[in-house]
């Protein structure tokens, strides 16, 4: 029973990704991205890693989609006839994406590579909070540095400098 649910979710995941790429309107593609992210969250719950799932939902589905939608708003609105032109171009270059995906799906499902390495023994520490906060301080420091870089990035790139 659980297996069928997983399969449906995976299919939804792949279809969501393909749809995000295929839609001509940029806004729809941003929404598609949010949808794919939501499906991924559910998948993560299936793979019993709830914390990461919640994080994914709130950050990716929420924040990133918000960023994309705001950038799309900032850029030029696309008029109706431009839309038709864009649709034609999109179809010209993207029409065979689904075919590629379906073909890859068939191929991957046929070749069945056995897992030929022996899996490691079970972990000694499996609590996410403990790992992140006690064992991997270097990663935390890295994340702080990246966030600071992000801050300075925003300051330099977005701030309207005086002269222009």
């Amino acid at each position, binding site marked *: 029973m659980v297996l069928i649910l997983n399969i449906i979710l995976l299919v939804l995941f792949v279809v969501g990704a393909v749809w995000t790429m295929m839609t001509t309107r940029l806004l729809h593609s941003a929404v598609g991205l949010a949808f794919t992210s939501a499906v991924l969250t559910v998948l993560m719950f299936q793979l019993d890693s709830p914390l990461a799932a919640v994080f994914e939902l709130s950050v990716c589905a929420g924040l990133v989609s918000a960023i994309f939608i705001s950038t799309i708003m900032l850029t030029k609105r696309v008029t109706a006839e431009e839309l038709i032109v864009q649709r034609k171009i999109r179809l010209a270059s993207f029409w065979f994406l689904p075919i590629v995906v379906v073909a890859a799906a068939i191929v991957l499902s046929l070749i069945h590579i056995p897992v*030929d*390495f022996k899996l490691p023994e079970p972990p000694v520490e499996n609590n996410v909070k403990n790992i992140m906060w006690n064992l991997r301080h*270097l990663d935390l420091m*890295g994340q702080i540095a990246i966030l*600071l*870089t992000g801050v*300075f990035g925003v300051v*330099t790139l977005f701030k309207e400098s005086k002269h222009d």
Partner: protein
Amino acid sequence: MLSLFVLLPFLAIVMLNLPLKTVTRQLALWFGIALSAGQVFVVIFQPDVFWNGTDLLGRFFTLRLQADNLSMVMLLSIGIVTFAAILVGRQTIADSRLRFNFMNLVLLSLIGMNGTVLLTDLFSLYIFIEVVAISSFILIAFQRDLNALEGAFKYIILSAVATVLMLLSVSVLLMAAGDTSFSSVAAAVKNSSSSHFVRFAIGIFICGLFIKGGLVPFHGWLPAAYSMAPAAVSVLLAGIVTKVSGIYALIRLSTSVFGPDSSLNAVLMIAGAVSIVIGALAATGQSDFKRMLAYSSISQVGYIILALGCGTKLALVGAVFHLFNHSIFKSLLFVNSAAVEQQTGTSDMDKMGGLGSRMPYTNATSLIAFLSTAGVPPLAGFWSKLIIVIALWQSGYYIYAFIAILSSIITLGYLLSMQRRVFFGILSDKLQAVREAGFGIVFPACVLAAITVGVGLSFPFIFNSFIIPIGAFLK
């Protein structure tokens, strides 16, 4: 007290951004100069209070940092190049607010680079490479010139592809090894080296690092990013960023983590040889000064990877020594290009000519730099290339040795044409107002030139005491 390398820049950034803005705004760059000079001092003179003093901060954090000779060399070159980049930045960036942001971003990339060099965990390697990458994206784009933005965007996209590849292989290695630290991954790779998944992971990781290092089939972003970045940033980028995030990681992984693996070495040698030849040939016809230097650094990095692929101890010593030399004379060349660009306002060599008469110091240091790049005897570049060629010869790779020698002739060719077009010849009328670049640029140029000549001349003496021990990290 290794953690100080990473924590001190944090402290500096926090201090810089304290509320009392006006005072710190002027002093910003001096923080950077002090930090990088301090780093160089600490690495060269190895004060034992620093090295084996009690790591009081270390008690609070389990950072698992570890430094051996290879990291020492990297820390040294990081310090030198950052020092030069900050000095050039101080001279070339006019707007004080931009200069302040430039300083913060350079400090952040210093954190990233120091971290990358000292860490022992595969995932933190990814994180710190990302720190360096994001700070260099912003550094390239912070003057908002269209070409710089284009270079930055290409760098972002390709760097993203690299991270995807690296994370993919991290996930597979996680499956195989259970933990992402170098030692456990090395153990897993050793005992299940014949499995397809593990070999796939190794291959993918190597390709990610190739993109970061800018070797030929993966080098698309490098010429655009180097040539269009602001002068000070291209010094930092060409001098040390790609070397730390790409080449150092390759050396560290291919020697200790993925273990001596013949097919991996073959891949490294092919990639190295191809990038040497294509880099040299592409640089030959260039008319833009910095773009030629970008292709030249692809070619020189090819030498390092070729030596790395050769695998013998001497070859590795040659590779690391060439990495250090290259970071010195390549940043020197970019410092000269910064000086020329500041004075003439353009980096198109056809519009320049006869600058040697007006800019004697830049002319002299550029002469030293390009002779060292081409591997002309008394200078450092010659010794490292010599070691590489000898190592190749000893282990029987005659064709590769021949390629290395032949393309250093082509290198001499295009650098000679660069020197002739920029510095020799008659001064065109438009450039009459050209004067020697300010002290801020000439001083780092002279320091770097002095290092190149010093290492070159003192090579026979320091060969056994400093250069050979570099190979000690190889088990």
